[in-house]
């Protein structure tokens, strides 16, 4: 009885927002109604309703992938994600405009207090479900090694303007087998405010505070630099000039050369495994709990096989919601994102090219998601 009541509504609601993906599922869904409670080949109970999220634009591509994947799993739930930016996302979450948020930064103390109120006495969940390596890319067509080795101080020097030529002794020392051209280093940064810039400069100021003296910033502090708007703009600028070096979401590095970054005595090229490894190697923040899995990224780590330039985006939700529908839907959506399928979907270079979280982290995330309940 109940099933019959929900299904038509579910199909309509889902089709409204996810027309293309869900249109294919609609008929299948109707057929499935005869055989029982299965939906889209999953054993999960069929849910319905709609949940809205908003926040970091860095996870937009991944969220689009997850929305599509989740729609196959639970066609009755209409999920939306508005890439309004991390700050706006947290704000909208705290004033109950949305039920979950994406944010490149964890909630601060004041926001945590507000979160308790917003979550009906519960707590906020902060789950690091999007880990994306940032590649240091360069344009040196005459150098045919796979990755040029760049020690951390050299990366900082290139972007701070103290390392100005590709045949600088510091670069040559790290690359004994490579013949480096005597051309100028042209550092290229993002011209718009960007979480990529913030994470990259956070890394620079952590590993080489004497060279990169500007601290972690969102807006590029040095005047007179080459720059490009958005990821694609930066890619075009680096591609356009020999000797250019930039930082870019690793999945978008294309055919540009990517640097192996100095970690300890090693040089590590970016890879999903190395990016996930730095997250596992980093300690939790001091105020982290079982629900708030915030991580103090140890960017100056010397542990072998870790890639230190990564961007972590948290998914923020409540441990308590005031109605069953929200609680069940949010829990189902977050579980899907944390699942191997969800993580692999985002890791597809066609989707977002992120690094899948480790099994250990997944266990803790799943335990946190299980705490989501209904108030009262």
């Amino acid at each position, binding site marked *: 009885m109940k099933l019959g009541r929900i299904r038509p509504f579910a199909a309509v609601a889902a089709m409204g927002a996810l027309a293309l993906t869900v249109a294919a599922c609609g008929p299948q869904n109707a057929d499935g109604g005869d055989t029982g409670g299965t939906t889209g080949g999953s054993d999960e109970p069929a849910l319905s309703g709609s949940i809205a999220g908003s926040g970091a634009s860095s996870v937009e591509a991944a969220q689009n992938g997850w929305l599509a994947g989740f729609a196959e799993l639970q066609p009755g739930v209409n999920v939306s994600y508005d890439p309004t930016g991390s700050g706006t996302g947290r704000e909208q979450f705290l004033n109950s405009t949305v039920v979950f948020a994406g944010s490149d930064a964890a909630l601060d103390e004041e926001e945590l207090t507000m979160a308790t109120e917003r979550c009906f006495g519960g707590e906020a969940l902060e789950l690091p479900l999007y880990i994306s390596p940032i590649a240091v890319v360069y344009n040196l067509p005459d150098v045919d090694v796979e990755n040029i080795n760049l020690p951390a101080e050299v990366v900082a020097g290139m972007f701070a303007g103290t390392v100005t030529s590709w045949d600088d002794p510091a670069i040559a020392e790290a690359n004994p087998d490579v013949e480096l051209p005597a051309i*100028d280093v042209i550092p290229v940064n993002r011209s718009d405010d960007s979480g990529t810039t913030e994470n990259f400069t956070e890394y620079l100021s952590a590993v080489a505070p004497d060279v990169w003296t500007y601290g972690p910033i969102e807006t590029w502090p040095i005047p*007179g630099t080459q720059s490009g708007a958005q990821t694609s703009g930066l890619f075009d600028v680096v591609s356009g*000039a020999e000797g250019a070096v930039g930082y870019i979401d690793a999945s978008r590095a294309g055919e540009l050369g990517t640097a192996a970054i100095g970690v300890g005595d090693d040089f590590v090229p970016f890879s999903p495994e190395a990016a996930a490894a730095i997250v596992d190697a980093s300690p939790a923040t001091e105020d982290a709990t079982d629900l708030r899995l915030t991580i103090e990224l140890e960017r100056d780590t010397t542990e072998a096989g870790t890639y230190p330039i990564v961007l972590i985006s948290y998914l923020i939700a409540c441990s308590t919601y005031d109605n069953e529908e929200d609680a069940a839907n949010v829990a189902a959506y977050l579980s899907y994102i944390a699942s191997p399928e969800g993580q692999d979907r985002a890791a597809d270079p066609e989707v977002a090219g992120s690094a899948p979280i480790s099994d250990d982290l997944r266990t803790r995330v799943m335990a946190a998601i299980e705490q989501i309940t209904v108030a009262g």
Partner: protein
Amino acid sequence: MAAVTDEPAIRRGPAPGRLGNSIFKGFSLGSGIVIVVLLGLVAGFLLYRSLPAILASREQLEGVGFMQGRDLLSYVLPLAFGTVLSSAIALIVAVPLSIGIALFISHYAPRRLAQGLGYLVDLLAAIPSVVFGLWGVAFLMPLVGPVFAWLSENMGWFPPFSDYQAPARNLATAGLVLAVMILPIITATIREVFLQTPTLHEEASLALGATRWEMIRQAVLPFGRSGIISAAMLGMGRALGETMAVLLVLSPGFVINFFVLQPGQHQSIAANIASQLPEASGLGVDVLIATGLFLFLLTFFVNLAARAIIARRAEFSGAN
């Protein structure tokens, strides 16, 4: 009975066309009012939304990341300077070229060729600006790069040409793209004015023994002067507000100087809004709208100045 005899003589009731007259009058009056109201609404919106930014304290503005601790005026002025400088470069390149094209079409080219050329120029005006931007990035930039490098190497003592850095994502390239963009509208306007030169003036000049070039200098150019100015202003209006082309071609910066071959020195107001708005929130949005208000005032005064110049030279205009 009387009514029957009356009717053919004097027609009673509303005269034919009276209804049409009043409808048309109402329509054109309404349209006139709509444009004024629209302009007022836009100005009002800009003022209303930028008030928080104008009234904000220094401390509050420091919270806006992309302003990097500047106050509103020192944030807007470099942007306004970049906007005006890029438009000025565009005008310096485009106006002489346009006069040349217009003269060729109106006085030198055979009639058939002139018509075809005229259509071609008008066609250029129909290309969307984002296409010009892409063209600038993919085609013009690699082309002018070596030229800029040569200029910088050999004429680097001249400050605007100093210290060129590849790729050519600088204000000079942006100005060149803008020049190509505003070329059609300037050319089309100037051509129309040149074509209106009184034939008597031209024939008189020729009859006195002037060569064709002398005739153009004596008869066509003085007659068309105000037309050239208004055409240039029309083009400048378009260049000032251009967004996409500048956004794609320029590495932005916030400095007031004339180093047009260096990257990261200048930025235009419109391109800055487009670049910062997606990630802006709260006061940041108000600040961007305030820069928009500044651009609105800037274009307004440029147009006002153009009108004043044209009015002062009214004796040369085609109206007499």
